[in-house]
């Protein structure tokens, strides 16, 4: 077993503490929205559209309504409420036209799930099937509009740019320099296309929402498995035309999210059902099938990239076009598209560049944020392109990258200038390349020799970068209160759905206040009535923003304690220091008080009290960010970049296409490790999710745009048998000047670029450039058999040579 080698210079920050929620989770006591029950609670079931696109001719719900135990039956005729995170484009219940195989056509609330399910089976719907929009090319032609009313959709103006009379939910752009000249004057210009399918988040707890709509007021009580309590509150208020105060959102333990539970999902439907059922609490729980075909997914993407280089290996120009197949609704998809315009050339110094990123409506399952959103996809394009460029130039891919990677003083795509405290892409690459023992690409002769054994090994690596993709005014906050025993109760508005937020933030508080981690009381449970505001638990922003908020709150707490202690000890608070839960005089340590002495106010021996219960707060807002210029994409979108790199060694069975991942080395410049155990967990989990996207996962649609694999039978995720034989985490600690203890976020990053690294290793092994994911056993075999050196599509139909 691997001994953890990380040593921290701090007492609490950097220590591998057990997660605070662990004990409840190993004893079965952790309660999730899925577990919750309330008096009189009803259960819902939905009737989903059997067609990707159809006109609803008629619905007969009479038999369902007549079934004993049924309390509410709803169709699109009952509500015209529109919801949407950035675009209000989604009806809670379909009316007129269905837009994907998974749109809710009718919903039932009944006394139990079986009755609801039975009632749904009794609803008769007549549809007129319509020809669906299959893919981004058809969508861009624009003959059929997925949203006829696109011109009128309410959206976040100035950040997203829906195109008139089209299927483009947002067209984001960036450009700088003189691309034309770069392309015409460089030694080599290489153009390629890469693509990848939609992939599901697969949280183990499916989406669940319970809503109780007060029949006597606007009040909504919501218990939900979600990442964004305050976003839900705001969107619900906006969609239902009520005040945010009317909406209380409770988040118990959340069984995984990965972005799929960001924003708003089943809450509006549960609300309508509760209202229709006279205010009874209604639980809507997605089945696993609905999790795949009704709830959103990661968008499929096609990237076209053209790059110019000089023979010395200098990248001179880069032009990228990203087309996102966002399915029926925009949801987070438009924000995914937006990130591509400032991160979509990777961590490279490119003077002349342009990016066009279109989030496109089709009639597929709609898309949303998924761990490191947009970045796994764009890096699949960039990092494969970089590898191909190095092949064409005959330069080692490590050398080629090192020549072009960002350094202090360089500008990112959007024009931000990196500093010495921005972290170092080069340190990450060098570390993983060394760990994997890279000595250069395999020669053709070596490859042929190995091929005879039936198994070929290959090494590959890839860079990654990501900054939190968030609005310029993103904020979070913390409230601290000292309990009577000198322990500290801390409340945050962000959700710990497994990433370890509450433990890491408690460590920062323990460090600042110098008390044991056990003395920090913090709950994963969120109640918007009590917990302070947080924008959304997404984007790996919490260590950075939340950590800073904890530091601020701690400082306020210490200041207030010292104010009271100063009076009690009859000295200027300036003379007081703190350590180990005590406050003492810097020149006379015998003059001291414990935190407990001042926690609820200090009491003199005669009973007189001063001070009162100690409460402190801390807010933290992204500093100095700006919206991007709509045409040039220039601006300041990134609060903090985290750079990283993966290197892998694989072995391919050339007859079966099976890939064995022998080793993954992953380095991230995270500035400062807050909890090595938690970071290690993020790396192991993220790498395996990335591996799933690389070699296994992906939605498959038939010609009617119906999802063919909406279950674990055919939509597989990696199991314990599928782990790499070795994962080596490497923590680079170039501190972030404005990060808490210099730390940066790393929750999402381990997933990014795993497919790129595998794709590059597959080239090293086979001498074939794959441009499409997943690199499944079948894809590899068909690619090998096709005899081609570039594989743009691995459907049999695309490889005519094989017939």
């Amino acid at each position, binding site marked *: 077993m691997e001994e953890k080698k990380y040593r921290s210079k701090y007492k609490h920050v950097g220590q591998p503490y057990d997660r605070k929620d662990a*004990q409840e989770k*190993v004893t079965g006591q952790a309660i999730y929205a899925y577990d919750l029950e309330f008096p009189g609670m009803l259960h819902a079931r939905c009737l989903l559209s059997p067609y990707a696109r159809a006109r609803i001719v008629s619905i007969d719900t009479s038999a369902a309504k007549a079934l004993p135990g049924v309390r509410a039956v709803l169709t699109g005729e009952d509500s015209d409420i529109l919801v949407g995170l950035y675009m209000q484009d989604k009806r809670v219940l379909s009316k007129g036209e269905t837009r994907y195989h998974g749109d809710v056509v009718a919903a039932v609330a009944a006394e139990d799930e079986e009755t609801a399910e039975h009632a749904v089976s009794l609803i008769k719907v007549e549809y007129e099937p319509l020809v669906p929009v299959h893919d981004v090319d058809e969508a861009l032609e624009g003959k059929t509009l997925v949203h006829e009313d696109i011109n009128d959709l309410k959206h976040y103006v100035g950040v997203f740019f829906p195109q008139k009379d089209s299927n483009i939910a947002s067209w984001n752009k960036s450009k700088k320099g003189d691309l034309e000249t770069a392309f015409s004057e460089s030694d080599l210009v290489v153009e390629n296309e890469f693509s990848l399918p939609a992939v599901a988040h697969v949280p183990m707890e499916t989406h669940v929402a319970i809503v109780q709509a007060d029949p006597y007021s606007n009040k909504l009580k919501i218990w939900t498995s979600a990442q964004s309590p305050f976003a839900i509150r705001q969107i619900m208020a906006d969609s239902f035309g009520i005040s945010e105060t009317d909406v209380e959102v409770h988040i118990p333990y959340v069984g995984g999210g990965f972005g799929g539970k960001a924003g708003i999902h089943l809450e509006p439907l549960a609300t309508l059902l509760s209202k229709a059922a006279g205010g009874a609490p209604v639980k809507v729980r997605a089945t696993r099938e609905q999790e795949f075909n009704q709830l959103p997914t990661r968008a499929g993407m096609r990237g076209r990239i053209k790059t110019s280089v000089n023979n010395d290996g200098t990248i001179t120009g880069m032009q990228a076009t990203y087309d996102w197949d966002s399915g029926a609704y925009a949801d987070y998809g438009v924000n995914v598209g937006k990130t591509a315009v400032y991160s979509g050339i990777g961590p490279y110094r490119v003077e002349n560049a342009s990016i066009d990123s279109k989030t496109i409506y089709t009639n597929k399952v709609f898309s949303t944020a998924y761990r490191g959103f947009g970045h796994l996809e764009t890096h699949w394009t960039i990092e494969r392109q970089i590898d191909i460029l190095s092949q064409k130039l005959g330069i080692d891919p490590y050398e080629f990258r090192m020549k072009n990677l960002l350094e202090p003083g360089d500008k990112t795509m959007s024009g931000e200038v990196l500093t010495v405290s921005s972290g170092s892409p080069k340190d990450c690459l060098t570390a993983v390349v060394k760990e994997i023992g890279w000595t250069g690409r395999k020669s053709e002769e070596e490859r042929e020799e190995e091929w005879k054994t039936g198994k070929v090994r290959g090494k590959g690596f890839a860079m990654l970068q990501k900054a939190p993709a968030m609005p310029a005014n993103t904020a979070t906050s913390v409230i601290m209160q000292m309990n009577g025993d000198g322990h500290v109760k801390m409340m945050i508005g962000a959700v710990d759905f497994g990433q370890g937020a509450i433990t890491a933030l408690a460590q920062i508080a323990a460090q600042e206040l110098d008390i044991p981690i056990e003395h920090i009381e913090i709950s994963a449970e969120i109640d918007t009535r009590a917990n302070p505001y947080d924008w959304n638990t997404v984007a790996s922003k919490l260590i950075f923003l939340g950590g800073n908020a904890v530091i601020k709150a701690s400082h306020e707490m210490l200041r207030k304690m010292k104010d009271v202690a100063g009076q009690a000890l009859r000295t200027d608070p300036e003379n007081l220091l703190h350590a180990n839960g005590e406050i003492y005089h810097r020149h006379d340590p015998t003059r001291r008080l414990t935190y407990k002495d001042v926690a609820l106010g200090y009491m003199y021996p005669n009973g007189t009290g001063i001070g009162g219960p100690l409460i402190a707060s801390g807010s933290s807002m992204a500093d100095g960010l700006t919206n991007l210029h709509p045409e040039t994409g220039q601006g300041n979108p990134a609060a903090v970049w985290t750079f990283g790199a993966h290197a892998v060694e694989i072995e391919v069975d050339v007859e079966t296409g099976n890939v064995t991942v022998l080793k993954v080395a992953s380095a991230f410049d995270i500035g400062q490790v807050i909890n090595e155990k938690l970071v290690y967990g993020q790396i192991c989990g993220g790498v395996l999710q990335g591996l799933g996207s690389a070699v296994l996962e992906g939605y498959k649609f038939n010609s009617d745009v119906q999802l063919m694999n909406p279950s674990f039978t055919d939509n597989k995720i990696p199991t314990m048998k599928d782990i790499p034989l070795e994962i080596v985490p490497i923590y680079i600690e170039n501190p972030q000047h404005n990060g808490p203890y210099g730390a940066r976020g790393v929750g999402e990053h381990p997933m990014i670029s795993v497919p790129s690294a595998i794709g590059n290793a597959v080239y090293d092994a086979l001498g074939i450039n794959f441009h499409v994911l997943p690199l499944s056993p079948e894809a590899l075999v068909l690619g090998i058999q096709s005899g081609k050196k570039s594989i743009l599509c691995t459907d049999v139909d695309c490889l005519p040579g094989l017939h």
Partner: protein
Amino acid sequence: MDKDCSMYIEHVESGKRKVTLSLTVNDRLVVRDVDPQMTLLHFLRDELKLFGTKEACGEGECGACTVIMNGKAVTSCIILAIEAEGAQITTVEGLAKDGKLSILQEEFVSQDALQCGFCTPGFLMSTRALLDSNADPSDEEIIETLSGNLCRCTGYIPILNAVKRTIERERKELGR
């Protein structure tokens, strides 16, 4: 037909057919009237209010609902409650004894073998069943057994580490 041979008694209760079921759950004998359609998972959760056992797919594919039934790890979502007549069932709530976490649970905590925790009860039960029948399994045997449990958070490596440490500690501390 010899009706006495069937081990159940069916009766009608407020319009619904019910069968009487008795079994032992976490060392306690329980007797309940249930629908014949009720799964063992729903029985544990809805009737006994043991919420540690989770449903994540309902089709036996993910292992989140794993419990130990007569010494074997089984997926309770695709077993009828009535099939468990007379059975000995252990759920995650039955692992800690006398107010103290078991070694297995302690190691899941210390190795950070969980994140969101939703799959954790299933992993604990699959592991417990394995170690009860084989105190010193090889890595291959552990992986074979636990690959029926899906986890999307941890990447499995911390889980594997926790199981291996449990084996060591159980050998040392319990003499297994």
